[in-house]
């Protein structure tokens, strides 16, 4: 009888210690995931795997409604594709993605990306309807789509002059990650690159939003999401997914 009680006690103690050990190990990994400088995470595959595992349900709960279950984005609301390596703000690194998740885009948070909107060039009479058509043709030309060559040439002048487009989208139309202004070369589009959508973008402007998650998610959850989005958008980086 006495021996059996001892054995049960020993087994329970071992199980308890193993449980505590595992819990401490997980806590330690989670702390490391948050504490590590983002650029150095690539050297820690277990942390990457843990982050991806933690992030998937979080993404489904908090991000998929706008960016789609497959990260493909939603052009109807200008929610960008998160599965490609093109990022509007910052350099697409884990740190930059994390910053955007923390503070949002036009979220009202003072540390968010609140620099500028795409102005409503038509509504504010910066450009006339004809001039908008010319700029649309220029953007179609940039993105190697069918266009009117003469109109595109006029649009090119407007791009650098009256329209002031180059100020945000850059002289080479490659965009500017400080302002969140996209490249116009046709690789990706937030709202769409067809004539009708481009006309609408230039006439009425755009002002996409992303909330600041700093008060809604924990630092661990935000770091995990940043790692997950980096892994999904940079498949060539060779980071383990699962």
């Amino acid at each position, binding site marked *: 009888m006495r021996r059996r009680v001892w054995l049960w006690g020993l087994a329970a103690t071992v199980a308890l210690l193993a449980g505590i050990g595992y819990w401490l190990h997980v806590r330690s990994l989670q702390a490391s995931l948050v504490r590590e400088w983002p650029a150095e995470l690539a050297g820690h595959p277990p942390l990457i795997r843990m982050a991806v595992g933690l992030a998937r349900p979080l993404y489904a709960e908090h991000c998929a409604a706008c960016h789609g279950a497959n990260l493909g984005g939603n052009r109807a609301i200008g929610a960008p594709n998160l599965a490609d390596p093109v990022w509007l703000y910052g350099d697409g690194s884990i740190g930059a993605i994390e910053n955007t998740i923390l503070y949002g885009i036009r979220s009202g948070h003072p540390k968010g990306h609140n620099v500028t909107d795409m102005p409503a060039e038509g509504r504010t009479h910066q450009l006339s309807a004809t001039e908008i058509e010319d700029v649309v043709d220029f953007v179609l030309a940039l993105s190697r789509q069918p266009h009117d060559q003469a109109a595109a040439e006029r649009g090119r002048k407007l791009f650098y002059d009256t329209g002031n487009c180059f100020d945000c989208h850059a002289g080479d139309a490659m965009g500017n990650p400080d302002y969140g202004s996209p490249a116009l070369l046709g690789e990706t589009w937030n709202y769409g690159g067809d004539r009708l959508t481009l006309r609408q973008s230039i006439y009425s402007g755009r002002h996409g*939003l992303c909330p600041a998650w700093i008060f809604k998610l924990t630092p661990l959850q935000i770091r995990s999401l940043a790692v997950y989005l980096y892994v999904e958008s940079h498949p060539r980086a060779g980071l383990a997914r699962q």
Partner: protein
Amino acid sequence: MASDDFFDLSKPQVRRSMFFFALGALIGLAVAGYGLFTAQGTRSHSVPPEALALVNGRPILRSDFMTQVQTQFSTPFAQTAAGERRKVLEDMLAEELQVQRGLEIDLPSFDPDVRTALVAGVQLEVTADVLAQQPTKDQLREYYAAHKEKYVSEGVLRMRDLVAKHGAGPGTELEMANVQRAVAALRAGQPLDEVMRRYRLEDSGALMEAGHADTGEIFEFAAKAKLAPPVYAAAATLERGQVSEPIQQGDGAHVIVMLEHRLPVQEDYAAAADQVWTDYKNDAQTRVREANVRYLRSRADILLSVDALALEAQAK
């Protein structure tokens, strides 16, 4: 013998009961202590992983530190040197210390800049969710339908406000007869300058630009602000090429000659969509800000003087 009884579960044993009671209490205390000292915002004995430092219990976040380093040196964080990072850390520590000192000496109570910044910050904070919410098309259309009067383009006019001043001609009745003839001549298409000369009419001076009568385009609201109400009321009804009846004013009898009048036009939803979106969001923010102030007032202990009470009563 006593040891045998301790492990013999079939018999009650005081020492065994006390032992498990003590063990349970210790485990409970350990769990509670861990929770107490590690809950978010309560850690003070160690730096949480998301922070680089704690200043009197307040964290300096790693993400903020990285952003600050990159901003200050215009270099990706991974490429910055230890010295650069150290400088930024020192600056952030100094900033946090000074912010805390500012709160310690109650800076917001007397510095208007700090008060303004705090108010702006609180308003941004309470409206953050509203800013992030995207209204649906149905909500926007409903808003447009309820506020159609907002989406009317501004009218534009070009006009002359002529006046036959008192004393410039014979007595009042004759003055009016003179102005009536001027109106008839203008309506008959006689040249404006000739009519002005013949019937001694001059520009009233209400619409002037650089010392001359303003014959350029004027927004309706500007004309309304510059003209006497009866004169504007007459002008508002005129179309291009029309001439008003004489309007008696203190300085004489006015005649409005409308050169061009583009009336305000109701914008349809498609044309106004962007402005509808902006107005919808602004209204939503205003509602949230006002609700926040009402909530703050409801939980605040505000004592009003007799004068202030009278003002409040007036406001109601």
